[in-house]
């Protein structure tokens, strides 16, 4: 197996506050990695570093074979690597972040046309195929505001997939959803995992994590405390803090 994301000794600061501490992590091709941890522990920051939405100051991040520029290299010449990395990394957000002024179809076909230089016909045909896959073909002409939360999140997944990414990042994709809509989004993600998509998922859905994850990462106060197979981490956590965290969340 080949490595698609490689982080070594990554440190990130907000001023004097250190939010990532000596993070070493690698994600293999086809692997599903779930990131868990308490609120404010740096889960979002960690996966947002993978597509450069957050900058980091020390260490090294390699994605898809490209070196992610550090903060000081961003302004001078780092744009090329950043652009190359982002082409191959899809992201799904907690708040969906669909473009409200564009129809569902336009939301999905815009980036392939602008970034991958696909023709309109090709991009739209592909968008419709993806919409069909997430069960929303009938809603192509609607605007995001006309859809339910679960439907919007499925469109957001289709939008990210339209760029044919090598890895998908999910930052709490179901946390903003009403409980009855969580299932439909998790189903789509499950299918993706089954098809062999490489994924990094931040989630509080522990049942889902146990089911689809190849490995689970526990992060606390910016440091990775434990990386293990789900069975191992859920049934026999090695670290004291992992144990307390899991006992707290699994009780509910």
């Amino acid at each position: 197996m080949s490595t698609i994301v490689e982080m070594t000794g990554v440190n990130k600061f907000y001023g004097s506050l250190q939010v990532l501490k000596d993070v070493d992590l690698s994600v293999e091709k086809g692997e599903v990695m779930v990131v868990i941890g308490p609120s404010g522990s740096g889960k979002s920051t960690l996966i947002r570093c993978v597509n450069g939405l957050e900058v980091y100051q020390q260490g090294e991040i390699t994605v898809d074979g490209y070196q992610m520029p550090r903060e000081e290299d961003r302004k001078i010449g780092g744009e090329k690597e950043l652009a190359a990395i982002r082409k191959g990394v899809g992201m799904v957000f907690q708040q969906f972040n669909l473009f409200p002024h564009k129809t569902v179809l336009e939301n999905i076909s815009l980036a392939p046309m602008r970034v991958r230089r696909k023709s309109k016909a090709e991009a739209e045909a592909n968008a419709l195929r993806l919409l069909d896959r997430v069960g929303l073909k009938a809603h192509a002409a609607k605007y995001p505001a006309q859809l339910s939360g679960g439907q919007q999140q499925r469109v957001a997944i289709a939008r990210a997939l339209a760029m044919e990414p090598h890895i998908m990042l999910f930052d709490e994709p179901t946390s903003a959803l009403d409980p009855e809509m969580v299932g439909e989004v998790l189903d789509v993600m499950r299918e993706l995992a089954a098809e062999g998509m490489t994924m990094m998922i931040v989630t509080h859905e522990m049942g889902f994590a146990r089911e689809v994850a190849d490995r689970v990462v526990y992060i606390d106060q910016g440091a990775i405390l434990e990386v293990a197979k789900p069975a191992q981490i859920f049934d026999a956590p090695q670290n004291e803090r992992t144990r307390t965290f899991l006992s707290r969340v699994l009780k509910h």
Partner: protein
Amino acid sequence: MIASTIRWSHRNLFAKPLDAVLSLVVIPLCAWALYSGGSWVFQGAQWGIIPESIRVLLVGIYPADQIWRAWGTLLIFGLLFGATLGCVFFLHRVLALGYCLVVAAIALVAVYSEPTSALLIVAAAALALAGWFATSRWENLRRFLVPAWTLGLIAVFALLSPPGIGLWGGLMLSVLITMVTAVLSLPLGILLAFGRRSQLASVRMFCTAYIETMRSVPLILVVYCVWIVLPVLAPQYSVPDVLRGMAGFTIFFSAYVAEYVRSGLQAVPKGQVEAARSLGMSELDVNRYIVLPQSLRVVVPPLVGNVLDVFNAAPLVFIIGLTDFLRAGQMVLANPQYSDRTYEIYIFLFVTYFLIGSLITFAARKLELHLAKGAR
């Protein structure tokens, strides 16, 4: 009926002692003003001066035998205005009917002075209706709106220039200044607004300084300075006063447009930019396809209000010797033959400014409601 009137006035006019006193003072005052004003308007006033001097009021000293050029301008603007309206307000049957009635009324008034004018006004109105119908029916046409306005303005310049740009005046000049300023200050303002957020410190500093300078000095000063400075900068060309005035207005108002646009840019949630970036879009594309359209939607109503500000500021061009609508009125009064018609002329100016101004305000308010409905 009487009882309900009494109840209504009790509740609205005499609810508290202070209300009662105010009502007792204000109501008779209004009645007196209405009565004396009304009796003057219908009996004392000599409205004959308006048709006699209408040409000067509308086009200033533009030569009489070239007046067809001004009519051509009206036709072009009619079509463009209609097309713009159609992008926002669907042309209902009721709306069309009301519009036709208003046009008929205007035409009737015009027939009183000149049948040809009436015909041309109706033609311009018909073009506006056609444009309105076209863009409200066929959405595909809407993307040609900006090119159409640009082409239209160029056509208008080409049409009006031959007798001499220096001869432009009257209401026509006021409208042209407003149009040119509105059309040119939009792209400039957008560039300035983005420049103010630029990563490059030099660009950011230049744009901030420009915007803040323009916003802290009076318009009249900017217009005057540009008028003086342009010939110094380009001595080999003699730029007509009208164009120098338009340059001054554009330079000044783009700073205001920039601030409106900036407030719109700030209203776009951060998640939108992040989503677009995460799809690999370039910063230019992120701004062009995601940020700008969403922010313009927010700022369209204040921008329309800004157009009204430009229109109402247009009389200031008297400082560089131009004859706008207001100045044209004063020019008419300068003729000793008409010197006792001050009220007639000023009331005409007042009513015209008021009608145009309230039309723009009304459009801005409608637009605001319309856009609020469309979002989320």
